[in-house]
């Protein structure tokens, strides 16, 4: 299917075609019903037009059979539509396990993006063709929304929490990026481009961009700078829980609840440490709200993730971070 369908934006991700198929079904279904009703109305209006001023209509004014027909058939159709739509939706919002994570921070009025290897961009993001790509997004001020029409996906970008979208690009080229949640004066300038490159070209591009540190190394440096390691260290006398192998694990809290240590939990524990205290520890950690930016938090989280990815890699990172 290589011909261009009018008014349908380019299909440049694995999901784009799925969404378009759903669209074609919806358009066909509603065209059928609209034409059906239009024909019915026009035919009846002409066939039964009033021929004299005092003429009245018949007394045929109800039919259970008809009522059941036009209740049940639409019901079946919308239920079918619902199931189809929900299937596509679950795929749109469930990134595959092997997706590579990039970071997006929205602020009035720009998108700041960062690669897992540390390269930073503004209002642009380069990604390799065919790589399942996941974006972890947050906002520094108001609500934004990250929308790539060619990939048929978007999600709001909120202050104070993380949201994600994912895509696997299927076409190289340059695709529009829009902010779709109204965010103030320059909302319509909060736009940019997603560049999809061949994998080797992407590697060349990565190499051409000067990079100071990767997020994980930056996080390790922050971890040392903020003296987090004075409490969060191994050993039974540590005042804070150790962070090795923490990411993704279930954590037992002091008040009896259990939570999964995901990005949102780690973020909350840095900014509101008292909210979810790990069982066996005292709520002594001060809040770092105002001391660290959203990007710093992302770096710290990336560092903590790297501690789970493997002891040796973590050790390497920690060494690299030492001044």
């Amino acid at each position: 299917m290589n011909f261009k369908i009018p008014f349908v934006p380019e299909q440049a991700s694995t999901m784009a075609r799925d969404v378009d198929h759903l669209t074609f079904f919806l358009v066909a279904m509603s065209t059928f019903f609209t034409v059906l009703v239009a024909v019915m109305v026009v035919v009846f209006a002409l066939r039964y037009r009033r021929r004299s001023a005092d003429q009245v209509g018949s007394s045929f004014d109800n039919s259970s059979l008809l009522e059941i027909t036009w209740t049940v058939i639409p019901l079946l159709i919308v239920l079918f539509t619902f199931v189809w739509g929900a299937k596509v939706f679950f795929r749109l919002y469930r990134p595959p396990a092997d997706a590579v994570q990039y970071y997006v921070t929205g602020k009035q009025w720009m998108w700041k993006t960062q690669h897992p290897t540390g390269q930073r961009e503004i209002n642009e993001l380069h990604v390799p063709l065919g790589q399942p790509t996941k974006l972890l997004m947050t906002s520094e001020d108001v609500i934004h929304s990250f929308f790539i029409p060619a990939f048929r996906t978007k999600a709001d970008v909120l202050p104070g929490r993380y949201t994600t979208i994912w895509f696997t690009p299927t076409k190289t080229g340059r695709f529009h990026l829009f902010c779709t949640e109204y965010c103030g004066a320059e909302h319509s300038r909060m736009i940019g481009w997603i560049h999809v490159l061949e994998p080797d070209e992407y590697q060349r591009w990565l190499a051409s961009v000067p990079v100071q540190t990767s997020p994980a190394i930056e996080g390790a440096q922050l971890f040392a700078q903020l003296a987090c390691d004075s409490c969060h260290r191994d050993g039974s006398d540590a005042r804070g829980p150790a962070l090795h192998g923490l990411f993704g694990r279930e954590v037992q809290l002091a008040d009896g609840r259990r939570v999964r240590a995901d990005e949102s939990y780690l973020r909350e524990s840095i900014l509101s440490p008292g909210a979810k205290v790990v069982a066996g520890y005292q709520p002594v950690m001060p809040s770092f709200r105002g001391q660290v930016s959203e990007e710093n938090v992302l770096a710290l989280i990336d560092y903590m993730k790297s501690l789970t990815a493997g002891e040796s890699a973590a050790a390497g990172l920690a060494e690299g971070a030492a001044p």
Partner: protein
Amino acid sequence: MSAEATVPEVKPNYLTADHGLKSWLLTLDHKRIGLLYLLGVSFFFLLGGIFAMLIRLELLTPAGDMVQPDTYNRLFTMHGVMMIFFFLIPAIPGILGNFLIPIQIGAKDLAFPKLNLLSWYLFMAGGLATFGAIVTGGLDTGWTFYTPYSSTFSTTAVIPVGLGIFVNGFSGILTGLNFMVTIHRMRAPGMTWFRLPLFVWSHYATSLIQVLGTPVLAITLVLLVLERAFHIGVFDPTRGGDPVLFQHLFWFYSHPAVYIMILPSMAVISELIAAFSRKRIFGYHFVAFSSIAIAVLGFLVWGHHLFVSSQSVYAGTVFSLLTMLVAIPSAVKVFNWSFTLYQGAVSLHTPMLYALGFIGLFMIGGLTGVFLGTLGFDVHVHDTYFVVAHFHYVMVGGTIMGYLGGLHFWWPKITGRMYSEFWSRMSALLVFVGFNLTFFPQFLLGYMGMPRRYHAYPEEWQVLNVLSTAGASVLALGFLLPVAYFFWSLKFGAVAGRNPWGARGLEWETDSPPPTLNFDQAPVVDHEAYNYADDAATPGMKPLSAH
């Protein structure tokens, strides 16, 4: 012929019963209050329309070069606020509902006439406060007031406009309450629930939403104002608050509010279809209960505005399913209306043209609502022009078509005069063509990815935007034309008589314009609504050939 002899012939009606400005501003007559609403609503519609034209002019070119971005943001915000809160919500209930509900059920007035007048003053106070806020700097949050932009970041008049809408909310609550009590307690002898015209049923459903939905908006606005004035933190993520809570509370009212706008229009359409088919509405009971079903289901679907707002995918799934269910009563209505024409005696006077136009446009508006309720589709078009086109099809194609159709239908009853049939058909045509030209291209723009509330856009979308602006000009002409011939009719129009359309219903059994207490003699009802078939020379299936 002496002067004395003619005096008894001139019977006073509600317009001539009393004179002077005071008799209008302090009137307790539901019909006069209806006309006061006509005045206020028309003024706010004009304001909203001017903002709309300025928006379309700006979007004629992609560069965003006519006004500054923050001016543009004020324009679409004030367009939305004016149109939704001060035109679409009060228009049909305020004007036609007020005028007709007591007459249609055979009552002398609403249950609480003073409360009714108070509602009008609250409406005007809210509207003028909002208008004042525009003059002194405007508002740039969008009509949806999303936090934390509205609570912390915007530098515009959030508090005055919030309070204006809050005050106007009371007007809606009191009107709804008044209608409900009136319909429950003031029906004429013999006017049972299932003899009520469907106009009354639909207004009952509307009132239910007004009474139960509006207070949630009120408390949401109170919290927003407190957040902005005192930084109480409930919507501020930097103080532990949740900005998405605002969206839940806001849409808990504002989605049902869509049904506050469309149900009265459906009320009008049922009357028009019956009157101009000279036939009882097909499936009366189904049409009546579908209004109630829409009102009840309408309270359960607000989450479909939050499919991409970080709401859990499971919540999204539930809201999508419930949204699908709203389509059913709407479909039932459309099919029943269409089938009323079958074996009817159909005439295509102007009000009927609006009614048939409504069916077509509402079909598109409603079906694209199903599109948007479909999760996988919504993600792509959420907050794009597809949504803009969809709700304009429902609100302009639905509500305004019903409003204009109703105004044309009952104009002879309200004023006692007929307007020009030719010019009114022209205006109906202009509205229909202009409307489709304005908003159909926006579906395409939305699917191609054009976000809403954009002041500038990529060049490849200019053609469709130019079409849309051209359509808006035609639409504006279609809206202005009735002003001319309605005024003309007041002086030069033919005298209408009691029942110019040969329609059924208590309002057509009293004078045009009606007397102050509506009827010379209290009516007693002994038949169903729309009893046209009773008049057929040969009762049964074949009255068509009877004449």
